[in-house]
């Protein structure tokens, strides 16, 4: 490669590198637009077969966690979600887990019974509800339902998303510290 090619190739290198950085930052940028938007509506069965609609929770704060039984982060959060539910229920806060693409028995055994969950656990057997919550431009190479695994959301009494922990946390917040801080501010 000759010396006279060095400058144009260096410029191309910088250009390519800037594209790379931009691609990596897209998720963070898009995330901020999810807050204060209307939460998608859904209707799913819980593990007892009862139909649960998102509209049932209007007028209350609703915490949603997307989970699977094999997800270590979801397992780590499960007892803390149960504790949050017990601590905040009297203040008008409801909690739901939406399990993604797993069967009823598995979810019943390895999530509900294992962690003695007293709040509803819904079955999103096709992953469509999880996908409806996933921002379009976050991890575009992934299936939309996959993007939501281990995410936490807080929906306010008017149905707006006011907390959305998706790829923005530097560290996993198993004890739900940020979520509880926001609830304490609002209640």
């Amino acid at each position: 490669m000759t010396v006279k090619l060095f400058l144009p190739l260096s410029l191309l290198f910088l250009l390519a590198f800037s594209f790379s950085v931009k691609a990596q930052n897209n998720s963070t940028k898009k995330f901020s637009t999810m807050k204060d938007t209307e939460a998608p509506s859904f209707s799913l069965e819980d593990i007892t077969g009862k139909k649960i609609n998102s509209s049932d929770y209007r007028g209350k704060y609703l915490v949603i966690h997307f989970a699977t039984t094999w997800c270590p982060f979801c397992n780590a959060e499960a007892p803390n979600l149960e504790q949050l539910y017990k601590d905040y229920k009297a203040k008008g806060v409801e909690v739901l887990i939406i399990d993604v693409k797993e069967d009823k028995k598995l979810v019943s055994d390895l999530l509900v019974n294992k962690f003695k969950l007293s709040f509803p656990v819904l079955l999103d057997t096709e992953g469509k509800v999880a996908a409806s919550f996933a921002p379009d431009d976050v991890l575009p190479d992934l299936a939309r339902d996959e993007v939501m695994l281990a995410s936490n959301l807080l929906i306010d009494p008017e149905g707006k998303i006011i907390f959305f922990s998706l790829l923005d946390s530097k560290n996993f917040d198993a004890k739900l510290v940020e979520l509880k801080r926001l609830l304490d501010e609002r209640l």
Partner: protein
Amino acid sequence: MNVFKAILFLLFYFPLNSYNQLAHVKLAETPVINLKRGEQIIATIKFEIAREFHIMSDNPGIENFLPTTFKIEPVKEIEFGKIIFPASSTFKIKGTEEIFNVFDSTIIIKIPVSAGKKVVKGKYESKGNLFYQACDNRKCYFPKEFKFPVTIIVK
């Protein structure tokens, strides 16, 4: 290096490389197993796990978690033994007490392979299938199957 190729490389390498992080596991090299008729060897297949990701080990240590498995498609007159996985490392999620076993960085799995004495010399094609479930330090991903060709050359 051809200038045109250099320009193409620079334009596409970095953007593609950033998205390739989503492919959690790849082969370090295309597996080719060489052995003689009547011989038994321990073949190795080396995988690279993307930086900042880990996959569950073959024995995660927690009931719910999905172990990594490896299968190789049978080939007539060639026998594959029980897969030997490497030692795992441990992973602990911040703020929890649960510790589980994972693979990260590079893993080499070992496969006992034996060729019958009457097998015809030549090249045979098989398929490997690594089943794994990956996570990073923030979230987990649906389990995946990584299928790839394995060439066996009997001399």
